[in-house]
C-alpha cells in the first residue's frame, strides 16, 4: 500500500482519479481493523486529515460547518456546539473510547456505512447535509442520501465528503441520542435512537424528528412516530404511539449482537426515551445525557 496525504481537495480528487485502486480515510479506526481481518488492501491510502477544510469546525450565523475528518472528540469538547446539539455531540462521544474519538470522524462514521453508526441517527434528526467533492466540483446531499446498505454508499470511487452543514436549531428545541449496548462503552449499538423535538408555547410538540440505528440495513427516520407527536403534548399516550411506530419501523436481523425480537422491542423503548430527553431539553428542564 502507498500512502498519500494531500493538503487540498483538488489534490485529493486528482489522486483518486489517477489511481482507481485507492481508498480515502480520516481516522482509519474502521479501515485498519478491516484490512487486518483480511479485506483486500487498497493500492493507495489517501489521508484526508491534512486538508484544512476537512479539519475545520466553523460556527456561522445560522449554521455550523464541520469538516468530514474532524475528530469527534472536538465536537464533544466544543461547548458552543455541544450546547446547541447535545444529542449529536453525545452521539459523537459514543463512538468508541477516548482513543478512538481522537481519530474517528463524522465522515468516516457515515461512509463506513455501518447500520449501527452512532452519529448517523443524530445527524438525521438534525437534517444534516453533506458536501461531497466530485471530479467535477462539489455536490450537496442530505445525510440520508449517503448510505445505501451495510458497507455501501452512493459515493463513487472518486468522491469523498468534504464537510457537513447543519442548521442551528430553532428556539425551544432539543435533540438526543441514546443507544443500547451490553457494555457501557467500547461497544456497537444493538439499537440506537435519536430524536429532535421543538415545543410550541403551550408545551405541545411543534416539530418532531425520530430516527433509529442498528435496526435496518441503514439508519432510518420514523415518520409515523413523528406524526404521532406533532401537535400533541409529550405524554404517556403519545410516547406509547412513538414506541409502537418505532418498533413497527424496524427491519432488523438476527446476529451475534442481537435478535430481531429484541431490536424491535427495544427500538420502541429507546425511541420513547430519546423523545422524552429531547423534549426535556427543549423545555430546558434537562441536560442529562448518554453518560452519567
Amino acid at each position, binding site marked *: 500500500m502507498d500512502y498519500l496525504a494531500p493538503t487540498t481537495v483538488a489534490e485529493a480528487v486528482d489522486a483518486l482519479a489517477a489511481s482507481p485502486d485507492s481508498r480515502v480515510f480520516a481516522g482509519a479506526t474502521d479501515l485498519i481493523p478491516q484490512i*487486518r481481518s483480511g479485506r483486500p488492501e487498497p493500492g493507495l491510502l489517501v489521508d484526508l486529515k491534512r486538508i484544512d477544510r476537512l479539519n475545520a469546525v466553523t460556527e456561522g450565523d445560522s449554521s455550523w460547518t464541520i469538516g468530514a475528518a474532524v475528530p469527534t472528540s472536538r465536537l464533544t469538547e466544543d461547548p458552543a456546539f455541544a450546547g446547541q446539539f447535545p444529542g449529536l455531540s453525545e452521539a459523537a462521544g459514543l463512538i468508541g473510547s477516548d482513543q478512538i474519538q481522537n481519530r474517528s470522524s463524522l465522515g468516516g462514521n457515515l461512509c463506513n456505512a455501518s447500520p449501527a453508526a452512532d452519529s448517523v441517527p443524530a445527524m438525521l434528526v438534525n437534517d444534516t447535509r453533506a458536501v461531497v467533492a466530485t471530479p467535477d466540483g462539489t455536490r450537496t446531499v442530505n445525510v440520508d442520501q449517503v448510505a445505501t446498505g451495510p458497507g455501501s454508499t452512493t459515493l463513487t470511487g472518486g468522491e469523498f465528503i468534504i464537510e457537513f452543514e447543519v442548521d442551528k436549531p430553532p428556539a425551544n428545541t432539543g435533540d438526543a441520542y441514546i443507544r443500547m449496548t*451490553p*457494555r*457501557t462503552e*467500547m461497544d456497537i449499538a444493538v439499537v440506537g435512537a435519536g430524536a429532535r423535538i421543538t415545543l410550541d408555547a403551550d408545551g405541545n410538540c411543534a416539530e418532531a424528528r425520530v430516527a433509529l440505528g442498528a435496526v435496518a440495513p441503514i439508519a432510518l427516520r420514523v415518520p409515523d412516530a413523528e406524526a404521532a407527536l406533532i401537535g400533541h403534548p409529550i405524554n404517556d399516550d403519545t410516547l406509547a404511539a412513538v414506541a409502537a411506530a418505532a418498533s413497527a419501523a424496524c427491519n432488523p436481523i438476527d446476529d*451475534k449482537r442481537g*435478535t430481531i425480537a*429484541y431490536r424491535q*422491542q427495544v427500538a420502541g423503548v429507546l425511541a420513547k426515551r430519546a423523545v422524552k430527553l429531547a423534549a426535556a431539553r427543549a423545555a430546558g428542564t434537562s441536560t442529562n445525557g448518554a453518560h452519567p
Partner: protein
Amino acid sequence: MTMTEDPTTAPSYKWVGSRSVRPDGLDKVTGKAQFGADLKLPNMLEGAVARSPHAHARIVSIDTSAAEAMAGVHAVITAADLPDLADAGSKTDDIFMSEKILARSKVLWEGHPVAAVAATSREIARAAADAIVVVYEALPHVLTVDEALADGAPVLHDAMITRGVEPAPEAASNAASRVVHERGDLDKGFADADTVLEREYTTKPVHQGYIEPHACVADANQDGRANLFVSSQGHFSLRAMTATTLGWSPSQLNVTPAEIGGGFGGKTTIYLEPLAVRLSAKSGRPVRLVMGRDEVFKATGPTSGSRMKIKMGVTNDGKITAAEVWMAFEAGAFPGSPVGAASMTAIACYDIPNFFVEGFDVVCNKPKVAAYRAPGAPIIAYGVESIVDELALAIDMDPIDLRLKNAAVEGTQASYGPEFPRIGFVETLEAIRDSEHYKSPVPEGYGRGVASGFWFNIGGNSTATVNINEDGNVNVIEGSPDIGGSRASMALFAAEEFGISVDRVSVKIADTQTVGFNDVTGGSRVTLATGKVVIDCCRSIKEDLRRRAAKTWDCEIDDVEWVEGQAQHVSGTETPLSLADLAAKAPRTGGPISVTQSENVRGAGAGFTTQLVDLEIDQETGVCRVARYTTAQDAGKAIHPSYVEGQMQGGVVQGIGWAFNEEYIHRSDGTLDNPSFLDYRIPVASDLPMIETIIVEVPNPNHPYGVRGVGEAGIVPPMAAIGNAIERATQCRLNNLPMSPIALLDAINRRG
C-alpha cells in the same frame, strides 16, 4: 477490611501484612519490563502460523512450495517436521499434545495449526503462511456436548473408548471419560426432603482473556540445543512439554521466563513454542512467533461449555438432605476438560449426607480447553449455588442462614472424600452476613444475590536460592513466574525472617539453567509453596549466621539469638552483629552466605469465599448494572493485602463478565463469530463499581505464616450470585450463561 480469626492470638509481623511496593513495579510503570513479544535478537526472523479454516476435516495434502519460493522466507514446517509420537509409542496425552501443536491427519477445530513459516518480516511471513495450499476433505462437526453425545454423532477420535464406565463400551465415542462421587442413599435423602427442586443449566466456553497474546522467541543452535524466551505460567513444565513435542530431552532447552501479561491458567500449556524452535533450527536464525488476538481466541484455551442437571432436596428447617448432579463438559478437540475438579468441588461447600455426582469429559470441534482460574468450579457452582438459592426462596429462609446450616466445617467429610482440616467457609458467610452491605436495605428496583465458592488450592514443587550480598542485602532467586505480585510476597517473607527493611531484598525469577525445578504458577500455589521454600532458605541462613556470630565471639551457637536483623549474644556482653557486619566477615567465617531449598510442598489449605451483589435492572431493556459488590474470602494469612485484594477483585470481575456477556459464539459452519475484544466483551472500567473486599484470615495450620492461596476461589460465585440477584428482582430465573440483556428481556416478556 481484614477479619482475623482471633486478633488477640494472631502473631504480629513487621513486614508480612504490609503494603510494600513490588520489586518489579518500577519496570512495569516505565515500560521497561520485557514481555513475551518484547525481545528482539540480531538476525531475528518473524514467524506466522497457517491454520485450519474448517472445524473438522481430513488433510488430503499440504503444498508449501509456493511459500518456500517467496523472497524472504527461510523456513516452512508442517507436522512432518515434528516426530510422530504415535509411532514412537508415546503416552496418549503426549500424542494429543503434539497433534494440538500441528495437525497431522485431521484438523479438529477452526484455527488448528497445519504449518508455520519464518521470514524476514511479519508481512512476508503472513503472506507465505497464506500461500500454503492445504487440500481438505471437510467432515461433519460437533460443537456442543449435546451434539457430541447425540446418537450417530461424528466421532473425533476413532480409538476413544469412554473410561470409567462399567462394562467398557465397545464403540468409540466423543465421551472421553466418566467420573463419579457418591455417598449415602439418594432415594432416602430425597424422601426426607420437604422440597425437592430439579433444574438444568448450560454454559458457553469463555476465554481467560489475558491482554498479552501468546508470544515467544526461539534461538536454536547447531549443537542441538536451543534457548527459548517465552511468557508463560511455568517455564519448567513448558520446557518439558516443548521437549516432548520435539522429541528432545528437556536439558536441550534453556527457557528464560519473560514477564507474563496475564494467564489465569491459559499460559500453563504450549502452543507456539515447538514451532518456534523447529523454525529456528531449520533456518539457523532466531525466530519470534507472536499470536494476533484473533488467533488467541480461535486457537488457545477457553474453558468448557457445559450442560448440567441438578436435583436437590431440603427440609423445611433448612437441612439439605440429598443432591444429584449430572454434568457434561466440553473438552474441545482433545480430552481434558476440568470436569474432574468440577465434580469434586460441586457440593464441597456443604455437608450433604446423600449425593450422587456424575461428570463426563466430552470432545468436540472447538479449541482444546485450557485451565481457567479454579478450573471447572465456577461452571458447576453456577448451577449448584443457583439451585441452593431457589431452595432458600422455596422454604423462605435467608440464603446465608441456609448455607450456614449446611456449611462444611473442620471434620466434615468432603464430598470428594477426605475430611476437611480447619477451613474458613463459615467465617466468610458470617463476614457477609455481618457486613454493612448485607444489612443495608435493597434499593427499590434492585436485586440482591448471594453465592459461595470453594477451591482446593495446591502446593507442589518449588525451588529457591537466597544469597546474602557483601553489603548485607538479600537476593532471592526463584522460579515461579510473577503473574500478580508474588515477588512482593517473597520479599516480605525474607524481610520478616531476617528482620530487615523490605527494600533491602531483591527478587529474581530465573531461567531453567539457573534455578531448580518449579511447577507452574497455578492452583494458587506460589505464595504458599514457593513462599515456603524461600522461608526455609531464610531460616537456614539465620542458623548459619548465628553459627558465624558464635565463631566470631568464640561462644556456643546457643548463646546467639537472631533479633531484629542482627545476631545478639544472650548475655548482652558482645556488640551485636548486623546482617551487613556478618556479610562483611563472611570470607573469614566460612565463605559466601547462600542457601538453596527445594521441596514438593504439601499442606495446601482449602479456600472458600462468599459474595454479595446488588444489581440495578432496567426491565425495559434487560440491561443490568452492578451497583455494589462485596466479596469475603479466606486467605489464611494475607502476606501483601493489596495483592490479595487484587486477586479477589480480579476474580470477581472475570466472573461478572462471564455472567453477563462473555461467550464463544460459533456459526453453524463451526467457525468462531466473535474472535475480537469488540465482540468478546470483557468488562470495561465504566461497567463496574469498586469491588469491596473482606479478607478473612483463618490460618492454614500447615504453613509457617498460615497462607492458603487466594488466586482462584474469587471467580467461583459471581455467576450464581448475579443470577440469584436477577431472580430476586424480576422473578425470572436464568439457567443459561451468559445472562445477557437479550436473554433477560426475553424472560421478562415470558413472565408477563
